[in-house]
């Protein structure tokens, strides 16, 4: 344990780690301030969306009038005109009486309008929304109403769970990996570069213990960074944001059908995927460091490996079974939202196994390791 605490202290007390954690916390706070500042814009955007729908309906109405002037007996145009009026009247009502706080009323009216729009499209009318989009929006609105949860803006929410999810998304889409590379990318190679490894190698220390202490310290650094981001996000949104709900519905596709998952569960699953991937990346860093012994080439090799895995999965992912492809975890959004014929945790066992194998190879290598020369 002495070695582990020493490694942890070295890592956590380094200027770089403290700077990274401070920047991370500042980034989260600034993102929340941005969201807070955009709250007025969110309501304005909702009003603009209704206005856009009104304008579309008005344009459609003018088209129907023109068509009927040319052909007053056109029954289809008459029917479309009537349905369009069924859309426009509630839209006028919604636009006139819109209030961000009356979200249930808004959703009810919206769903009515969308259902009429579906009927309008079935009759041959035009709408910028596709049938699939309309159906998904109706389902999502109904889910909000059923759960009694107010919908939040996807990019500017200040509700605690939604803001946490925003941070978690950034974490999943590269943020977590970037931080691991920043915090632990040089954890081993720098010891060889600075020759500080000589201090450790001239003490009665087993090199394998040393490597495992490095692994432990890197994992703790990752967890600390994750906690820093999440606690900062939770704190600002708790004190300055809205309550929200972790049961917030998230639309996913499972085996071809639309389903709703809880935001809290999605958030947890996403972080589990990223954390297992982080372990895999740490194992790569440790192993490459023993061969290369220089920080920049190690980082290049790790990024190269991840880039190659990303490319292969992107190009040939359909042909590679998910349970043997650890790089599938580089796409956590797809894993969580498109669960067609597969589960979100499909690639986790192989990732974990490969990480353990890499660490076993690293332990074997470190036993032979000596001064870089």
């Amino acid at each position: 344990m002495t070695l582990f605490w020493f490694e942890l202290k070295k890592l956590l007390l380094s200027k770089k780690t403290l700077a990274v954690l401070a920047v991370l916390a500042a980034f989260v706070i600034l993102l929340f301030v941005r969201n807070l500042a955009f709250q007025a814009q969110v309501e304005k955007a909702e009003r603009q969306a209704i206005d856009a729908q009104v304008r579309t309906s008005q344009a459609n109405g003018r088209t129907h009038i023109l068509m009927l002037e040319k052909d007053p007996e056109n029954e289809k145009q008459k029917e479309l005109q009537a349905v369009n009026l069924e859309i426009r009247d509630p839209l006028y009502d919604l636009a006139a009486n819109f209030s961000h706080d009356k979200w249930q009323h808004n959703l009810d009216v919206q769903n009515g309008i969308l259902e009429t729009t579906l009927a309008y499209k079935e009759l041959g009318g035009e709408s910028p929304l596709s049938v699939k989009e309309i159906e998904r929006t109706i389902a999502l609105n109904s889910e909000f109403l059923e759960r009694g949860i107010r919908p939040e803006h996807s990019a500017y929410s200040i509700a605690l769970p939604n803001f946490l999810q925003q941070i978690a998304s950034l974490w999943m889409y590269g943020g977590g990996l970037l931080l691991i590379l920043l915090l632990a990318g040089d954890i081993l190679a720098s010891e060889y570069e600075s020759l500080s490894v000589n201090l450790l190698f001239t003490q009665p220390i087993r090199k394998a213990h040393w490597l495992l202490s490095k692994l432990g310290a890197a994992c703790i650094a990752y967890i600390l960074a994750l906690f820093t981001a999440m606690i900062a996000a939770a704190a600002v949104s708790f004190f300055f944001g809205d309550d929200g709900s972790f049961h917030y519905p998230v639309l996913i596709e499972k085996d071809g059908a639309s389903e709703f998952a809880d935001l809290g569960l999605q958030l947890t699953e996403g972080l589990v995927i990223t954390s297992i991937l982080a372990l895999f990346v740490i194992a790569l860093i440790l192993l490459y460091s023993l061969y290369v012994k220089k920080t920049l080439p190690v980082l290049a090799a790790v990024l190269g490996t991840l880039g190659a895995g990303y490319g292969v999965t992107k190009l040939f992912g359909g042909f590679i079974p998910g349970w043997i492809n650890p790089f599938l975890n580089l796409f956590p959004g797809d894993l969580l939202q498109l669960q067609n014929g597969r589960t979100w945790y499909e690639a986790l066992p192989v990732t974990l196994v490969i990480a353990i194998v890499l660490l076993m190879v690293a332990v074997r290598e470190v036993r032979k390791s000596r001064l870089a020369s």
Partner: protein
Amino acid sequence: MIIQVENLHKHYKKQHVLKGIDMTVDEPQIIALVGPNGSGKTTLLNCMTNLLPFQEGKIELLGKKNTDISLFKEVSYLQDNRILYGDLTGYDHLKFVCSIQQLPADRIRQVTDRVGMTAYMKKRVRNYSLGMKQHLLLAMAILNEPKLLLLDEPLNGLDPSSAITMRNILLELHAEGTTIFISSHNLDEIDRLTNTIYFMKDGALLKESLQDFSRSEYTITVDKPDRITAVLAATDLSCTVNEDRQIEFLETETPLQDVLDQLKAAGLTILRIDNRKIGAERRYQELFAEESLR
């Protein structure tokens, strides 16, 4: 046997860095390793402590193979100060070594008092001066009261007072029974520490250079310097007169007492006697004349 190195060969790619080194040390002493840059001194020390692999030969320290990590409970190696962690304090370093070596915590205070570093223990190492870093390294090296202490250029960059402190501690450790194996460029300090010197040249140890070349040189100042030349000419003493009209001679060639007797008989008063060991430097100049000229 404290140090046993047999037929040690080390290659870096095509370069033959250590060429059949043999060395045996069987009783506690201070041994100096001297040679120009690139002669293989640090490589030899790194091989001895298993920091570097070697292709041929055998190394045993305190009767154990150098690959045995338990060796480092009794052997310490003071290296380049880059091995220190700038973000940690001096105390962090000593506490780590103390825990790894399973030593009592009060040992830290004993050692920091000894090397005069107690006041700086809470300071981060990146704020240390070079001398402080060297003293911290020494404190770390002597924490476990080693039977064998290996030092690589411990006096590099030290100011005179730090060098004197370091030298005195090494002499004390030697008196306590520690064998000290020191690599250094500071020939004056080496002369003050030991008569046992191994010279390294192009990866080989020059065995003929042990002990027998070390000499004391005396410089005597008298009250009537203008008479010195005449007085000395009348004797068979092997002395020279320097530019400052002082008498210089080697103790091995001319006994001090003979010179004093002759000067007294000639009616000269001795004002000052200076003694200087000149072994290492003179021998170095003889052995490495080519390097000096380059």
